[in-house]
């Protein structure tokens, strides 16, 4: 049966067909929908983990128990999970284990553009790369068996354009994958140095075996025979661009990209006059192909970073793009439309107050990172998930008198549970005086409202235990924990001032439900009396989509306004009023 499916949905389908019993992971674009699509399947346990490391660890336990397991994350998530990932390579598996890394070339929704193919090579595990949604399905389906065959976690490496393409997928019946049962095996599963040294040999043997398999596999590493003039070696979404740019070329399409099938690559190279490697991001294939003694070009023909696309590849391979751009936009300045905080969002008043107080904000990753953008401009760093807490501690300690009592770390609730807690422990144990604000909207908003440990529901929406961040903070030894709601900005400023002045660690939990959450009710839209407006522009500067400029005056867009009242509080003329607050 054929069906249109998102690439990520196809991974979930493939996992189901492949007999997966357990799915875990942490949200992150472009990987998030995989677990969401897996959750409705019956007989599969699917759960969000607080972070990628834990997700992988639980999956390793499931694998040892003898069932097939899937773990999903975005590329930077694999950094968090790198510790178990690298050693799981030595431990091997019992039930098949597939780890999805969704990379984000061009950084559509990410802080960096790292190429995780290197991590498969460094960890010495088998890597699979699908090029479209249908391959995402069948390769997932069969990756569990590969994992079991070579006794290794499989890194399933996707990119944004495979995750977020919707294409035709052929559904198949699920495979039989009976649970294998747990078998105690101390030398294999206890990575003491002595055991690890023995396992090290097994890792090398696995790589040889997997390379031999890849050398002979027409299914995973097919050759598309064509003209002998050019032979192209490629993988992932790049293959689809190659197919379209040069349908007549000979192509070696690699579905298994670690270990590389060098024999097959050499055999292919001998059939063509010239070898070109086409890939996105780093010259991962090219460097290895050349090191193996094959004369090839690749990166010199394309940009060093960002995504590949048809015109780029046509220019590289054919000399010019097939489609001429005939409409010029050079003479118009088109304003950008960057993402912004939603009208009524509880993050907005926090940044408005911090900006007015001229506090230095070490930020973190989530919707609230948008507080760094104009007109709020109230965040001064954003490094990695959980990074705000440690960075605030370091900046406060070494920033000199100017920064004393003027530094906060700002972190979302999901991010706090993910990796902020350990930073807070560091603050407590080392006597930091910095302040941490936890923006608690009870969800993981940025990635589309996935539940987190503080949400009280699971991935299927069923009730689940709810962890209160305030309890966690007290539990790790923070004495000053204050909980406030953000919409009363005068109060917010008082609380911030008091906690910043305190000569010890303090945490302010700013609590307001995400306005995109179902069940949140709003006040009536704000009303504007133009007679009273003095055109000062302060309301515009709170950065809300529901207020725009019209003929030199503000205008309230009633369709968008949630009546949160933030703009009302900044107006000194009383021109803005809230008709009646029904509560938010």
């Amino acid at each position, binding site marked *: 049966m054929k069906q*249109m499916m*998102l690439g990520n949905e196809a991974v979930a389908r493939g996992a189901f067909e492949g007999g997966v019993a357990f799915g875990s992971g942490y949200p992150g*674009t*472009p990987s*998030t*929908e995989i677990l969401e699509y897996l959750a409705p399947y019956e007989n599969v346990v699917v759960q969000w983990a607080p972070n990628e490391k834990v997700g992988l660890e639980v999956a390793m336990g499931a694998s040892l128990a003898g069932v097939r397991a899937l773990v999903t994350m975005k590329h930077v998530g694999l950094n968090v999970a790198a510790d178990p990932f690298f050693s799981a390579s030595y431990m091997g598996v019992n039930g098949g284990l597939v780890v999805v890394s969704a990379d984000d070339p061009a950084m*559509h*929704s990410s802080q960096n553009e790292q190429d995780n193919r290197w991590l498969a090579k460094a960890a010495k595990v088998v890597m699979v790369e699908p090029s*479209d949604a249908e391959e995402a399905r069948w390769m997932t389906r069969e990756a569990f068996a590969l994992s079991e065959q070579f006794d290794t976690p499989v890194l399933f490496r996707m990119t944004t*354009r495979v995750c*977020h*393409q*919707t*294409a*035709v997928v052929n559904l198949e019946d699920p495979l039989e994958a009976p649970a294998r049962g747990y078998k105690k095996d101390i030398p294999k599963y206890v990575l003491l140095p002595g055991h690890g040294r023995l396992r090290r040999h097994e890792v090398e043997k696995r790589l040889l075996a997997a390379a031999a398999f890849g050398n002979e596999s027409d299914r995973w590493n097919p050759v598309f025979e064509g003209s002998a003039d050019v032979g192209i070696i490629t993988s992932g*979404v790049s293959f*689809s*661009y190659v*197919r*379209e740019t040069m349908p007549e070329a000979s192509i070696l399409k690699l579905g298994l990209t670690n270990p590389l099938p060098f024999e097959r690559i050499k055999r292919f190279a001998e059939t063509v006059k010239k070898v070109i490697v086409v890939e996105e991001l780093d010259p991962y294939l090219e460097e290895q192909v050349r090191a193996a003694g094959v004369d090839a070009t690749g990166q010199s023909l394309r940009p060093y970073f960002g995504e590949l*696309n*048809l*015109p780029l590849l*046509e220019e590289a391979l054919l000399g010019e*793009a*097939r*489609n*001429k751009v*005939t*409409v*010029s*936009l050079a003479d*118009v*300045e*088109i*304003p*950008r*439309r*960057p*993402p*912004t905080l*939603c009208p009524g969002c509880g993050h907005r008043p926090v940044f408005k107050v911090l900006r007015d107080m001229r506090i230095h904000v070490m930020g973190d990753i989530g919707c609230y990172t*948008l507080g760094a953008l*104009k*007109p709020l401009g109230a965040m001064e760093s954003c490094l990695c998930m959980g990074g705000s807490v440690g960075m605030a501690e370091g900046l406060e300690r070494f920033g000199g008198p100017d920064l004393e009592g003027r530094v906060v770390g700002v972190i979302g609730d999901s991010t706090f549970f993910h990796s902020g807690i350990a930073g807070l422990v560091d603050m407590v144990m080392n006597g930091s005086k910095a302040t941490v604000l936890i923006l608690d909207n009870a969800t993981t908003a*940025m*990635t*589309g409202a996935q539940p987190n440990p503080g949400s009280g529901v699971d991935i299927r929406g069923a009730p689940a235990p709810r962890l209160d961040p305030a309890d966690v903070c007290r539990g790790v030894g923070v004495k000053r924990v204050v909980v406030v709601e953000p919409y009363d900005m005068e109060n917010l400023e008082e609380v911030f001032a008091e906690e910043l002045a305190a000569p010890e660690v303090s945490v302010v939990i700013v609590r307001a439900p995400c306005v995109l959450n179902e069940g949140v009710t709003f006040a009536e839209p704000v009303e504007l009396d133009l007679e009273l407006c003095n055109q*000062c*522009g302060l309301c*515009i*500067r709170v*950065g809300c*989509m529901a*207020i*725009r*400029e019209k003929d*030199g*005056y*503000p205008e309230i867009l009633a369709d968008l306004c949630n009546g949160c009242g933030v703009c009302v509080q900044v107006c000194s003329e009383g021109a803005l009023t809230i008709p009646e607050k029904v509560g938010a």
Partner: protein
Amino acid sequence: MEKDGITNVLLSGVGGQGILTASRLLAMAALHRGFDVKMSEVHGMSQRGGNVDTHVRIGEAVPSPMIPKGGAHFLVSFEKLEALRYLDYLRPDGVAFVNRLEISPLTLALKQPNYVDDVDRILDEKAPHLIWVDGTEMARELGDVRMVNVIMLGALATRLPFLEEADWEAAVKERFAKPKVREAVANAFRKGAEVCPGR
């Protein structure tokens, strides 16, 4: 269908306008007719009030999911600025359907208007073939502004002779479960088609 066998439709607008649903309906109708389809969509950061585009490619065999600049047969824009932003994707014979709606990006300061003056004229001048659609207005008349996406689709459908009524019906049936919604969608689709008579 074109010589190279692939028809490219780019849809653009602002997050929350129902662009993804419209794109999915188009893709599903094409699959129903037996075509290969690839579509590329946006999720994540860019959805928070940012601009959104989806690429839909329909043909006998479609390898890659992205439309090249200068390669779109159709641009379906739900907002004027977002029509302008993607205009260079159009082929010389490409047709743009533009919803008559302005949503300004976030205003940063009172004295800084944040739109393109004269956007209608610029669009008319630059687009090789442009069809204005009063989509938002028509949807309002139908009593549901969210229907603007289906209205735009109905307009586009008049220029896609390789898809038949049965294909659209099948797509709507697959996408929407409630008979009432299906009926409303079918009605909005017909209204959209009336924008481009003679096909």
